[in-house]
């Protein structure tokens, strides 16, 4: 999935450099995305060394993948909202409310009427959650799109309302537990994963998918006599993609042996859900009209309107989608905790927005990719998890994440304007401050 947002080329350097740039351009690899991958590798290596070899272990990476999933799922929707020049501050509260409602369905409403442990409980709970998420997203979206109230205000209201409703419904803020046995699997855990052979099947499907998408893209472009990437580069990309998938499955998923059963756990269900949603959202954003319109609105709302695009319906659609994704994340989080608590999802809006922004989404509108946001969520979670490993206290963690967020955006903004020196300064300042906080925050 090459979300290509090719940055402008500045042709004022020497010939070798230009030829190298031309080569990079011909691969159509998104340079911003590549930069983030490099940042992730640096972060992982640094934590691995600092923690004395505890970071890059199957156990830690498996946990990291599960912990990233719920934020990453929501971040894919937040990208489209920010791209169309809006914001959603309500996602944390909405997630809490939807999680609470799904827990109510399982622990109160259905058992009171029909008794416990019916096979269909988890399905009903999930459907209720997703439908309610879509409906509440539609309420917020319609006030924004048709009522003309700024998204910041509407979702700030939602932030308060949804959180408040949890307490009204929850009989003085009671914790709801335990949840349905099948529902719990959505959250991962020892039983909530694919197991060894299914994980390999998933990996194989991933490889076939990667090769097929490269092949069909080539074929389509050939058909219309358009320029195609050089064959060796396409083959290289396919091989590289497959190696990454296979290594990921071998090292992270199958490599982690369950502490309870002793057998390889395989890919956790939340991660399977994240993969499915990421593929779906990339397809929606890049290959469907809806996605094209979201980007057009972000790039030039007037042009979109004059192009005959129903901009209001499109904006409303992004909020409906966000509501659905909040429901999915709510299911993951409640299932993982095996309970619904009143402070479920507190501050999630900040994590989700940070993930999108670290992933290259611009508040100016029109720019941002789904895969970038997922990577942003993984970067955020890597920082958190690495600092926990180093026993850094929670306030210091917040400081580091805040510093990283601001410097990441500063670097991105500087690079967009071609100011490489400014980008370098932002990078250096961010690194020094983060290192200082980490060093002094160790307990």
């Amino acid at each position, binding site marked *: 999935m090459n979300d290509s*947002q*090719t940055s402008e080329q500045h042709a004022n350097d020497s010939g070798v450099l230009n030829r190298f740039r031309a080569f990079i351009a011909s691969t159509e690899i998104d340079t911003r995305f590549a930069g983030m991958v490099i940042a992730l590798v640096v972060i992982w290596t640094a934590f691995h060394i600092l923690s004395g070899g505890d970071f890059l272990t199957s156990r830690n990476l498996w946990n990291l993948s599960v912990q990233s999933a719920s934020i990453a799922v929501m971040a894919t929707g937040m990208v489209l909202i920010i791209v169309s020049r809006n914001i959603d501050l309500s996602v944390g509260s909405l997630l809490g409310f939807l999680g609470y409602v799904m827990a109510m369905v399982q622990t109160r409403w259905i058992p009171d009427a029909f008794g416990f442990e019916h096979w269909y409980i988890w399905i009903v709970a999930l459907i209720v959650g997703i439908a309610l998420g879509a409906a509440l997203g539609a309420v917020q979206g319609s006030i924004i799109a048709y009522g003309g109230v700024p998204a910041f205000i509407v979702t700030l209201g939602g932030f308060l309302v949804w959180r408040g409703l949890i307490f009204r419904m929850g009989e003085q803020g009671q914790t709801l537990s335990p949840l349905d046995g099948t529902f719990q699997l959505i959250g991962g855990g020892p039983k909530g994963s694919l197991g060894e052979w299914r994980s390999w099947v998933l990996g194989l499907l991933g490889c076939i998918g990667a090769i097929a998408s490269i092949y069909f893209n080539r074929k389509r472009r050939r058909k219309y006599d358009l320029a195609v990437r050089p064959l060796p580069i396409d083959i290289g990309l396919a091989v590289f993609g497959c190696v990454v998938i296979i290594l990921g499955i071998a090292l992270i998923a199958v490599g982690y042996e369950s502490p309870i059963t002793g057998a390889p756990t395989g890919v956790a269900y939340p991660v399977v859900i994240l993969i499915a949603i990421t593929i779906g959202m990339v397809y929606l954003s890049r290959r469907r009209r809806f996605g094209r319109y979201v980007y*057009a609105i972000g790039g030039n709302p007037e042009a979109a*309107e004059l*192009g005959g695009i129903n901009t209001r319906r499109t904006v409303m659609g992004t909020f409906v989608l966000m509501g659905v994704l909040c429901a999915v994340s709510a299911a993951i989080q409640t299932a993982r905790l095996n309970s619904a608590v009143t402070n479920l999802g507190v501050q999630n809006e900040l994590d989700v927005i940070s993930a999108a922004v670290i992933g290259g989404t611009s508040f100016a509108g029109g720019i941002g990719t789904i895969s970038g946001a997922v990577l942003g969520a993984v970067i955020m979670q890597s920082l958190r998890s690495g600092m926990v490993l180093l026993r850094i206290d929670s306030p210091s963690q917040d400081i580091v994440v805040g510093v990283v967020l601001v410097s990441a955006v500063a670097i991105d903004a500087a690079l967009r304007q071609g100011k490489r020196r400014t980008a370098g300064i932002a990078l250096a300042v961010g690194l020094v401050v983060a290192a200082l906080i980490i060093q002094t925050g160790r307990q």
Partner: protein
Amino acid sequence: MSDTKVPLVELRDIRVSFGGLHAVDGVTLTLNPGEVVALVGGNGAGKSTLMHTLAGAHPADSGQILVNGEPVTIATPRDARAQGIEVIYQKLALAENIDAAGNLFLGRELRTRTGALDDSAMASATRDVLKRLNPRFKNLNTPVKSLSGGQRQSVAIARAVHFNAKILIMDEPTAALGPAETAQVRELIEQLKSEGIGIFLISHDIHDVFDLADRISVMMQGRLVATVEKSKVTKDEVLAMIIMGQRPGGAN
């Protein structure tokens, strides 16, 4: 341009008001096939608003629009396009973050059988139409942000050409361009005219107007001062109409 033919477009007694302000106040205009009618006037004269009405961007409060003699309803940009009306806006109306093909087909995307965007087909069609308009155009896959003003204007014009516009509205088409690019756009206008397309040209540049237009309509404070044949007036007379609303002797 004979009087016996049915005009391509006829705007009859169009009125548009914003609150209490009459932005367009009972204007009647015609446009014939292969003709360029320039719409001139000071700021706030109502020329852009009038054209927005024809383009479906801002519906009229009252009045009638006829295309080929048939009364039509134009309430949205989609309605206008269905009548073969295309607009090239002053501020280019392109989404800067999207490539040339995406912009050319914006709102009218080609899709595959599964309903997905057919990017290859759109890129191919865009390449073909741009080859006709601007042979040096190469950057099909980059966001239009990185293109020059002339190249962007090519994309905007390509949109009109590709969708077989019968009626073209050009709002200051050369305002953002350098001299060479302006010459190119002028050439294009001549070419489109010879293909029988009718063009409304909104312009501040009196030289552009005299070089390109067949007839000149002058507006002031929402009203039509007069429509004159270019050959029968001088630049000074037109300027007097724009500034003081003064009709010259030969105007109807």
